[in-house]
């Protein structure tokens, strides 16, 4: 079973790290270089193709806070995991209120990241049981 993950992060080095960490886990990674591009991609593609969103906070154009708010509003069935460098409790609480699945502070270990994504994906599958099956 393959799951498609949308990674929204402006830094190529970070995206590369995520790719490395998710390599061999069967998770397919699609990348957007900022919030705006992420929204465009999600709106353009069939939403059913994305199983989870991994979103950074600090980005040009549309930042993580706004992007996540959009995702949660427009695609509430897709779980969102925030992956950020900000060790900010207030920010974490804000995101949790938005209904994000997890607020992960970099640096995060490979196992932890995979586990969190898997958990989120399984939750989506369970919660959104009415959704299309891969």
């Amino acid at each position: 079973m393959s799951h498609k993950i949308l990674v929204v992060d402006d830094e190529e080095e970070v995206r590369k790290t995520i790719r490395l960490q998710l390599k061999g886990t069967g998770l397919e990674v699609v990348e957007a270089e900022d919030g705006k591009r992420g929204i465009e991609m999600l709106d353009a593609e069939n939403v059913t193709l994305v199983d989870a969103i991994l979103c950074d906070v600090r980005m040009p154009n549309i930042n993580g806070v706004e992007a996540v708010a959009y995702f949660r509003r427009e695609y509430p069935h897709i779980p969102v995991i925030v992956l950020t460098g900000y060790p900010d409790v207030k920010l974490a609480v804000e995101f949790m209120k938005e209904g994000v699945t997890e607020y992960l502070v970099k640096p995060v270990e490979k196992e932890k990241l995979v586990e969190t994504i898997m958990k989120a994906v399984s939750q989506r599958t369970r919660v959104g049981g009415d959704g299309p099956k891969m």
Partner: protein
Amino acid sequence: MQPKRHRFGLSGKLVLAILAVGAVPLMISLSGAYYRGSSELQDVIGANFQALAESSAGMVDAELQRVIATDRILARDANKDPKVRTKLLGNQPLDKNLSAVRFDWPPITEAEPVMGTLKASWVTGSEGGLDGAKPATSSTRNATAKVTGLYLNSTTQQHLLRISAPIYDKGGLLLIGWLHREYDVKKLFDPLIYPIRFGGTGHVMLINNAGMIISCPMLATGSRIVVQDLLARVTNDHAGWTTAENDGHGSQTFSIIGYAPLAGVNSLLSPSESWHMFAWQDSREIFAPAKSLLIGLLFAGLFSLGLLVALGYYASSRIVKPIRRLHHEASRIAGGDLSQPLVIHTGDEIEELAGEFDQMRIQLRQHIGTLEDKVEERTRELRKNQAEKDRVTEQLIQAEKVAAIGTMVSGIGHEINNPLYVIMGRAEAIRDGKDISACNEYAGDILKHTKHISAIVKNLSGYIRPASQHELETVDVHEKLADALAMAKLSLLDDRIEIRQNFALVPKVAAKPEELQQVFFNVIRNGIQAMGKKKGVLEVTTTLEDNQVCIRIRDTGAGIRTEHLGKIFDPFFTTKGPDEGEGLGMYIVQQIVNKYDGIITLESEVGKGTTVTIRLPGVKSI
């Protein structure tokens, strides 16, 4: 203090006072003495002149009486002495109507005791006339001799007088004729009048009541005194003296004149005529002793005045010298020199005064000493307080810096965590991977990001260190603006705020670099915060104005409300939330800018933004 020059010093005043005290009474007494002396002298001289006139008048009177007596004897003997009778009358009986028969007996030039005095002799009858001027006749045997006043013999130009003596018959009872004898008055009286001289000009003169000079050593006989007023005063029937503004001799000088009538002669003269004696001396001569006395007195007075001035000067200098010294010493004390004692030995009040001054000086010195101690103590306290204040300010700057960093923690964390995540990911890949070449690549990435983190930590730890450990140096403001901007950007989640930089070529400034960074960071952070979540521009501009480095930081944020403008630099004033700052930022900014002789100003408009301008003195070389 410059000693003031006095127009009249104390010495001058004292001399003047002494002069006034000495000179005025001296002058008054001198004048009084002179006036009194002159007045008394006048009285004495007047009395003397009167006496002189009287005695002279008596002498002339007596002489004339003697001549009359001689004539009377001659006339009496005319009938008794045959010799005389023959000579005078011949042997004929004397006709009472006989007109003048001139004879020359005794021979006029020989017999007359006064040489040349007797000018002519006549005999007339008792009723006979002589030149129409008959003597008053009397038929009694006691007929007196008559004197007929002055008349001029126009031929000889001699002034004459005539004595008429009665001739009686043999029985001596019947007046039968007159013996008339004519005398030259000048020759008769001059020997009497002329010798009466006193001094250089003093003399007596004989005049008649018509003002005609009979005998005078100075004026010709027959000349006249024309001053009627004087004439009236001196031709009295009594003796006396008077003063006049003229001397009767043609001079208009002040005169003292003694006068006396010739009582004996006047009784024989016709009632309309009288003779008077007149004593006079030139007033200049009269008053010469008085004048000489006055001059003497004047010289004595002047000498006294000179002596007064000299003594006064000496006395005043004796008084003034110590006063001057006192003044000098007092000026010295007033000038602040309290070290030397003030000692003046005069044995009087000045010495006492100097003593008082010295006491004042000693007390003043003590007071000033105490005052200086107090000033020193207070200065020490102030310095201590200032040092304390500086220390507190320093601590406050540090505390604010740390507090600001506190608000930046998540931003800093983000800045470190991102490369750390990359490192972690690469390390995992190396751990799990088999491909050596990939591992080498990952190790390179790790190294790169480790260096990045190291740089961040180094920068932050340098910044966070207390300013007391930093050195003052010449700082490139652009460098510190860049550092501050980099720090401020950490709090930005995206790129909605456009950062513009317009940097001119400006000199460096003398400061501690971290403190400048703190200043710029605080202002920039405020600008960013003012723009909130909206889009905006933060513009940083540097210019050189009058060798001052001018840094303008402009935002397009909310602006500052008017009521807050005055409080911006107050400590603990803030409009931000509890986690965004302590309200010390701008206070610290001002403290630091002022410390480097800079100025910070602020312009703001609500809704449009705020511009903060910081001016710092540039160091000489760019």
